[in-house]
């Protein structure tokens, strides 16, 4: 048991942080886009790629057996990490986007018909908008939107008026990738369930910054990606309550998701395999298992304290910069800051910050409707991970000020 108890100790586990970019020490503040991997994850990926490689669920030989064990124990580790009731409720996918598409296709086939509606919010990532638009178009259903106020919070009064008998599913972000606010999902789920409406949470950011307990949240679906959670790229999870998985038809067909196959009729496997067609990214899944094991060994107080310090610092400093607007103001703020600055274009700022070794994100952040709502075409976003320090936040602020004075 490692018991990593400070940010500097955490940093030691991440080789990517030791590099220089453009001659400067890397200050990586684009964790909301993707995060770096701890050495334990990297070593497991290498070990599997170089030795423990055999197709899973398919053979009795040693390599297949060991790979299968790693894959299935990763499923157990994730079940524990999110406190799902059954391991069968943890489906491996290629990421959040695939998880949401799975539900958009499969759940709607079973439960949504012409004239029904699906409810999302005005602050969603395209991956939690487009699959629902496509489903609505296929079925002849309507997409309804919970509006977001100037501070970035859901308009809860309007939400009440939108919840009618046509709504068959609500799909919203646990934490917004632009506003950095933890949404009142418990309240939403409670309202939804009182009307018998299931809720899907886009947990791409939520899984990283909250201790997710799917039973406590009582969400019906929870989708997240491995690569933002310090795990490998190309792997993700869909958590879904067993009762839905039993009723939902499979989405992708192929090997491993079948029970028997004849040309007359094919029967399907039980969940989770029913939704895992073909050879999965078993190396990625095993790596994700290692990532959640690593995270479970970190003293969460250390991470929380660090996050709080950074949020306080950044809120204070950014507010003091003239002409700077911060998007997403709430007491439930995570260390993710999207800003616009009068007289300075985000891409100009980011280009110069990059030369100073600082990695941030600019553009629409895959959330065009939200940017339209605030009447902007582009923002700059700095997002902090478990290994970022207050010193880095300070360097970012100082550099940002320099950059702004160059441009204005």
């Amino acid at each position, binding site marked *: 048991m490692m018991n990593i108890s400070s940010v500097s100790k955490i940093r030691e586990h991440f080789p990517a942080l030791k590099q220089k970019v*453009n001659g400067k020490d890397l200050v990586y503040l684009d964790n909301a886009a993707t995060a770096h991997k701890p050495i334990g994850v990297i070593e497991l990926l290498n070990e599997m790629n170089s030795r423990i490689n055999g197709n899973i669920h398919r053979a009795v030989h040693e390599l297949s057996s060991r790979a299968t064990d790693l894959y299935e124990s990763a499923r157990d580790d994730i079940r524990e990490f999110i406190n799902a009731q059954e391991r069968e409720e943890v489906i491996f996918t290629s990421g959040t986007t695939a998880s949401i598409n799975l539900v958009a296709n499969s759940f709607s086939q079973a439960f949504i018909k012409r004239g029904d509606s699906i409810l999302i919010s005005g602050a969603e990532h395209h991956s939690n908008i487009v699959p629902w638009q496509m489903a609505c178009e296929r079925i002849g259903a309507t997409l309804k939107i919970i509006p977001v106020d100037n501070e970035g919070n859901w308009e809860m009064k309007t939400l009440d008026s939108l919840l009618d008998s046509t709504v068959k599913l609500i799909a919203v972000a646990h934490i917004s990738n632009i506003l950095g606010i933890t949404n009142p999902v418990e309240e939403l789920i409670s309202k939804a369930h009182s009307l018998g409406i299931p809720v899907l949470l886009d947990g791409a950011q939520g899984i990283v910054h909250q201790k997710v307990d799917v039973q406590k949240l009582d969400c019906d679906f929870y989708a997240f990606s491995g690569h933002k959670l310090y795990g490998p790229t190309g792997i993700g999870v869909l958590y879904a309550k067993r009762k839905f998985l039993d009723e939902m038809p499979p989405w992708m067909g192929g090997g491993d998701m079948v029970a028997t196959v004849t040309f007359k009729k094919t029967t399907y496997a039980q969940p989770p395999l029913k939704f895992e067609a073909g050879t999965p990214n078993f190396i990625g899944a095993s790596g994700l298992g290692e990532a959640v094991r690593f995270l479970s060994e970190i003293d969460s107080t250390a991470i929380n304290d660090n996050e709080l310090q950074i949020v306080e610092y950044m809120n204070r400093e950014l507010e003091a910069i003239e002409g700077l607007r911060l998007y997403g103001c709430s007491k439930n703020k995570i260390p993710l800051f999207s800003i616009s600055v009068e007289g300075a*274009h*985000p*891409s*100009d700022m980011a*280009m*110069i910050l990059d*030369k100073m070794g600082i990695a941030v994100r*600019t*553009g*629409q952040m895959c959330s065009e409707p939200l940017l339209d709502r605030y009447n902007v*075409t*582009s923002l700059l976003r700095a997002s902090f991970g478990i290994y970022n320090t207050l010193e880095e936040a300070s360097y970012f602020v100082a550099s940002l000020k320099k950059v702004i004075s*160059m*441009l204005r």
Partner: protein
Amino acid sequence: MTIKEIQQQIVEEFSVFTGWMDKYEYLIELGRLLPIIEEGAKLDENLIKGCQSRVWLKGEFTDGKLYFRADSDAIITKGIISLLVRVFSGREPSEILNSDVSFLDEIGLRENLSPTRANGLLSMIKQIKYYAALYSQTN
């Protein structure tokens, strides 16, 4: 002066800069000096949309020569645009078609052209070439 000669001039001007900071400061200055395209020309039809910054380009063919005016909401991009306008505006379409933009490489701005930057510059250069191809046929 030919296009090649103007490009050479620019490369010489940039050779005095020692670091990226100086280069960017110069580009910012150039960007500020570039005449702003009038609001009427900031139409969607003249917009080259990249997802990082927006670029407007308007081409006019008069007396056998192509004239360009351009603008961007990002000032460093605008600075690079002013270089492109200096090089390509007031030229015959055939001369534009026979030129390349390797001078941007030589002044160390190649990274700004990579498609991953998605800043509209690459699309703008394509659009300039497209105008040239279009009007070289009417010659």
